[in-house]
């Protein structure tokens, strides 16, 4: 129902899981949470049409939403989890062959660019990491040569997983597939903010690490408490050294592992009768 549902090919993954066409996925009857979030799954300014159903990853976003007098939540778990089930072998390497740190800095978006000291971040990365570092830049930063060059000149590999898409155009539907393949080969995942990518990495066995200047986004709305609230709620996950068992437990909770649905049930939730009866 909303073009955000197509971000990163998540609607396509769910369609495939439910047995539908994943090149032109059927319309979802509501809004799909597309990234980990400390609010109700969406940013504070997000508009919703009346009666919209909101498919969230875990129960806390739903509870936060209810407290804001928003309604109609259903917890389905992150689409990433369904991808793990669809692609159990993609990118898998023996554990002792996992190499490198996939470093994923906090990113801006079309509506705003991040500000911060990239050089200071680089220095801290070099001081911290013992594995070869690959910087994964969001396409808004990757498309800026000056940012790309900073990390290349620092001796890091620089990559981008593709474009998120906007208004159903330009979506790289293999985005998450590429991320999955990459995470399964890397030993560590790191970022300057606790974010979706950290949870994805932990879910497939990466050692997580969160450190460095968190940078800022001038258009960031502090209504849900902003990054300081993230640090207060998940202090265990905002550390250079994170206990793997704790990280795994928190990841399973935040991605909604126990809420995964069987295909038929998910299809009935997401799609209309026309689609389900085809």
């Amino acid at each position, binding site marked *: 129902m909303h073009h955000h549902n197509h971000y990163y090919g998540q609607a396509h993954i769910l369609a495939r899981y439910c047995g539908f066409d994943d090149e032109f996925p059927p319309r979802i*009857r509501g809004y799909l949470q597309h990234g980990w979030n400390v609010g109700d799954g969406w940013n504070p300014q997000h508009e919703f049409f*009346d009666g919209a159903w909101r498919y969230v990853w875990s*129960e806390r976003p*739903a509870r936060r939403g209810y407290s804001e007098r928003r309604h*109609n939540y*259903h917890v389905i778990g992150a689409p990433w989890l369904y991808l793990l089930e669809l692609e159990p072998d993609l990118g898998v390497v023996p554990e002792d062959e996992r190499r490198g740190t996939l470093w994923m800095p906090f990113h801006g978006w079309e509506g705003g660019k991040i500000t911060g000291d990239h050089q200071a971040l680089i220095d801290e990365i070099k001081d911290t990491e013992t594995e070869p570092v690959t910087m994964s830049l969001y396409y808004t930063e990757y498309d800026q040569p000056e940012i790309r060059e900073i990390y290349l000149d620092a001796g890091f590999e620089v990559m981008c997983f593709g474009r998120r898409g906007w208004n159903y155009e330009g979506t790289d539907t293999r985005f998450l597939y590429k991320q999955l393949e990459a995470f399964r080969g890397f030993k560590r995942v790191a970022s300057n903010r606790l974010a979706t990518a950290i949870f994805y990495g932990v879910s497939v066995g990466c050692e997580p690490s969160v450190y460095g200047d968190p940078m800022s986004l001038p258009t960031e709305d502090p209504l849900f408490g902003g990054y300081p609230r993230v640090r207060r709620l998940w202090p265990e996950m905002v550390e250079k050294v994170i206990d793997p068992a704790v990280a795994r437990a928190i990841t399973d909770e935040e991605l909604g592992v126990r809420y995964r649905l*069987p295909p038929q*049930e998910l299809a009935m939730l997401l799609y209309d009768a026309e689609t389900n009866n085809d």
Partner: protein
Amino acid sequence: MTDSTESVPMGGTAVLGLVTGEMQPWTDYRGDRRPAGGPALEAWLVDLLGDRTYRHALIVGPHDLGIISRVVERSDRTTLVVRGVQDAQDLVSVLPSTVEVLAGPLDGLASDRADGRWDLVLALAGVERTLSTDSADLSWQAALRLLLDRAEPGSRVVVAADNTFAIGNTLDARPLQRRFGDEEWLPFHDDETRPGSIDSFVTAVRGLGAEVVLTTVGLGPAAQPEVLADTTVVSVPLQEGWLVARAVHAARASGRPLLADPAEAIGAAARSGQLAATADSWFVVAGPALAGAPAVARVVAHVGPYDGSGTVVRAAPADGRWTLLGATEAVPARSLADLVPRPAPEPARMPPGDGQGFEPPEPLLQDLPEPGPVLLGTEPARLADSWPAGPDVATILVRLAARDDVPAFRDLAARIGSAARRQGDASTQVLDLGDLWLDGDQVVGGASPWVRRAPASAAEHLAAAWWTFHDLLVGAQRRHPWPPWMEGRDLVRTWLAMSGVEADARLLDTGRRLADEAASSRRAALVVRPLTVREALADRDRALHDMAELKGHIFGLERTLKFRDASLKSREETIRRLRGENVEWRSSRLFRTGRAVRSTLRAAGLGGVLRRGIKVGGMIKRRLRRS
């Protein structure tokens, strides 16, 4: 505890007499006004009276033939006092010669038989229904004194009082004056001496010199409770469970038109330990100490259709479980109206004047329609020796749905599926989630005697159970996490899948039919329950809410269409542009020259030269791209 299933043969040779103040015409046995009785009260009384034989029993007020039979078979002689002459005549025609039937009120008995004393005195319909239009202006307290004065020293007295604070009364949709037949001539509920609590009832009885040995609450229609429970059992906080479910069923079986379903209020009263304070009626037993420990089962409940058939269950709570003390088949007492049919009385009409008749307006609150067919039966042998005292599985599922805890709901649904399959695939045992319990990590039954007339498969039983649960959850607009378009068949199909059953349309249809049969039988007198005010308001609000959400949904669809249109338009433009470029290219001199060269070379057999040229061209193209 003995429980004879045979009544005393009715020979119709009883003696008829009159005491001052009889009522003509009047009946306490037909229409809205029911005599005290019913299978639960009858079983409770049997336990109470035990094996003792009474010399001369006195029954004052309207009691059904089942109650009268139990007393007659334990008494050498019985005096029955009913205030309506018609009722007295009908009773004489069906009762044996050991019974004397007096038509008239209690105070008429006291004045005309001033020296009369009895060793068993019953007034199970309450003392108000012992007085007539021509009685003295007696308060409740005064009437109670007259009753207790009929008892000889050391005799057994059992007297009832109905409770104005009963939940059913509070929710009764009728104005006060239309709820109680006797109120038509006397607003007796304004009497300040009437007890407002079980404690004040006991105090009143003790204040008149009687020794109270047992207090019991009645749940259900005031004159014919479905459940009798020792006051000590219901005066403590109770979680939703077997007894509360019985209380809810009893309240729904009251026959009253209600403002709202009583389930919520009863649950709240039970959790706060106030079920005694909000019971429909109280029974006080006075006299010598009761033999046995206890002499009467802590809880006696009728589980069956409203026609009085079914099972009488005797149980007691102990160590977090209910222990079955006995389960017997309930034999519906024959009603006086069935044995001695009379035409229904015509409503009073004003005589026509000036050619105009006066037609009384139809009341807004009609009598409930005739009960639906009874399609289930009960088998006492189905009950287990004990079952957990905690909340039933339906209650747990409702709570999980309210918390949006679908994983835990799914887990419990899987256990329910296992329980159903343990029953086997050709069982007649009705599967109802309100009669299943968590015992450790297993779902177990054992508290329900309901059976179907024909066996059904485990999948069919499950489908019926989930449809019944759907009616409970969705029909009552309880909170749950599933979207409205799933409500109905899709939701039941989803829950069946959680229980390990892949449901097709046929199974869903069968389950719906079986669920309707169960509902019809369990609420046999309430098949078409009048819509309560709460339900009507909630339905209206829900309709308005759904309309607003559908409008939003349309808006979302229209916006999606707009984006899709924009995408289509840009693709269309791209296609057209490419098509135009293609046409242009094909008509260019360069393209035509190249095509001519290629066809010439091919014709001359120099295809290899062409291929090498194409390869070089490809290398040039790649280099151009990289730059």
